[in-house]
């Protein structure tokens, strides 16, 4: 097994479109790395470059200690699970899994052993003789994973493997992928646009936007301490509220004239300068009594989510969402006073959109 190292990797398409703009990233051996970002952010391109399906315009990709820039996909010792599974429609499930091994001239009994083993792990033994079209979406997904497993590769690559499944199955397969990866201990790189998948699956979360890495970290780091406004609004559902504010002094900002205390604030910010204040919908407490650090909110409407309710409205003229446990606040409330925990306030530079936290 091996880690994967990317060194200022670039992809420039014909017409000078730069899809990946110099990405450097180290993925440790055995870890589960998720690349997440909106469509067009270059995450799939990056994965396909690691797989060898796209040429590398600049930089270096290493699998283990080996530079693979010029290595054929088949010789990179990787396995890939595609979004539409890409199973060979005319081959049985068994042959689908065995095909790669046969091309590699693996002995017959070894192929048989590995395919049976993978089928057992994935619980697809009863379907080995069937054609893919006779399988459900979830079963096809498993076969696609089986095809990757039997190869015993150094790296698994997943390209949005769950997006063709329905919501319930997606959650189930997500758990299975995680369990499987832990059991096999193979370095995995997983691309998704779904931030829930990204949070739950990853050891290492890589948020990408516009062909660049926005932030790398553990899921909780990225959630707790987003480095840019993009990451702050991309990770977390519903997304973080961003309010225009003003620096009032060390540890103090104001929004619409109301003071808020902040723990994580960079020193030396000029009082009176503009700043962006980020608050997660689940981090604000709705009460009625104004406190030392609080904001007033006008409620427009309420979304019921079952266990929780989302209050949509405006704070200081900007759209704002508050998440609260059902029953905590009366649904017909028109005005809310939100008390803000200083530890839950995120500050961003309006120009650079970078975090203005303690250095």
């Amino acid at each position, binding site marked *: 097994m091996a880690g994967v190292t990317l060194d200022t990797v670039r992809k420039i398409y014909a017409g000078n479109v730069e899809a990946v703009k110099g990405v450097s990233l180290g993925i440790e051996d055995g870890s589960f790395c998720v690349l997440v970002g909106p469509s067009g952010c270059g995450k799939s391109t990056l994965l396909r470059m690691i*797989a060898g399906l796209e040429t590398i315009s600049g930089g270096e990709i290493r699998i283990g200690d080996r530079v693979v820039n010029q290595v054929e996909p088949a010789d990179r010792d990787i396995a*890939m699970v595609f*979004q539409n599974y*890409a199973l060979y429609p005319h081959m049985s499930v068994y042959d689908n899994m065995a095909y*790669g091994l046969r*091309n590699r001239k693996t002995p017959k009994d070894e192929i048989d052993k590995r395919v049976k083993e993978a089928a057992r792990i994935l619980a697809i033994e009863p379907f080995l003789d069937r054609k893919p079209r006779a399988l459900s979406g979830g079963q096809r997904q498993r076969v696609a994973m089986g095809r990757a497993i039997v190869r015993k590769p150094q790296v698994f690559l997943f390209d949005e493997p769950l997006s063709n499944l329905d919501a319930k199955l997606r959650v189930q397969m997500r758990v299975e992928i995680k369990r499987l990866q832990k059991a096999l201990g193979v370095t995995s790189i997983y691309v998704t646009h779904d931030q829930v998948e990204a949070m739950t699956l990853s050891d290492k979360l890589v948020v990408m936007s516009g062909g660049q890495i926005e932030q790398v970290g553990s899921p909780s780091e990225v959630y707790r301490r987003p480095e840019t406004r993009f990451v702050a609004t991309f990770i977390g559902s519903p997304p973080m509220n961003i309010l225009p504010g003003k620096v009032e002094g060390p540890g103090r900002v104001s929004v619409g004239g109301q003071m808020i205390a902040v723990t994580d604030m960079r020193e030396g910010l000029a009082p009176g300068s503009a700043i962006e204040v980020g608050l997660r919908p689940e981090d604000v407490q709705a009460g009625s009594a104004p406190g030392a650090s609080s904001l007033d909110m006008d409620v427009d409407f309420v979304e019921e989510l079952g266990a929780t309710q989302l209050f949509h409205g405006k704070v200081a003229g900007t759209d704002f969402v508050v998440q609260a446990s059902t029953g905590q606040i009366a649904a017909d409330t028109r005005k809310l006073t939100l008390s803000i925990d200083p530890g839950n306030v995120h500050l961003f530079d309006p120009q650079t959109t970078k975090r203005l936290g303690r250095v």
Partner: protein
Amino acid sequence: MVENRPFAQFMAYLTLVLGVVVVAFPVYLAIMASTFDAATIINGNMPLIPGDQAVENYTRTLFYGGKQAREPVAMMMVNSMIMAMGIAIGKIIISILSAYAVVYFKFPFRKTAFWVIFITLMLPVEVRIYPTYKIVADLGLLDTYTGLVMPLIASATGTLLFRQFFMTVPDELLEASKIDGAGAFRFFKDTLLPLSMTTIAALFVIQFIYGWNQYLWPLLITTKSSMQTIVIGIKKMITTTDALTEWQIAMTTAVLAMVPPVLVVIFMQRLFVKGLVETEK
């Protein structure tokens, strides 16, 4: 939608039956004519029920032929069969390979290559017949099977059909193959070819019938009677000079000429229809 309009339904069936009769009656007449002797057909009062000369007519046609020509139709059928099979199989091989190249390989002038192939659609045999004849004659291929088959293999229909099919095959299959260690040839043999089976069947049916029905080309380049195809044979039996046309033999030959295409269609119908309408991948 519930529809219960007996009159409309009656009219629909009437139209259908009329249509079928218009198409089927001449065929029926030919089959009947092949079971009478010449005199019965000539006197103009041929019954519409089978006569008793069937065995006599068919054995004579197959193994002896008409009185003047004395060319057994069995031999013509063999010639036609070689020509039709040659065209069908040759065309499938040429077009599947060229479509594979055009769709899956990036090479200089790929677009040009495709358009050149495409343009040949505008040049059927009849249009390019003189230069084609000249080339075949210069190569000394007159009165040979190669000469019969080769010029008709080169055309764009098959290439286009396969190209359209290949474009619907998801790119991920090729990528999965690459990761599975299959090169260009393996991908073609293990994945593309099995997936193309229905398209191949459809093309085979179309091209077999096309080849079997060729008239002008074999007429031009065959002079030996041993190289004659059955479509030419029919024409030769209907004499316009002073001799009497042996209608029962001509009709028998016509019926025999229909048999192989009909068999091909019947046996490949299921695959053929699937190949033309296939969407499931």
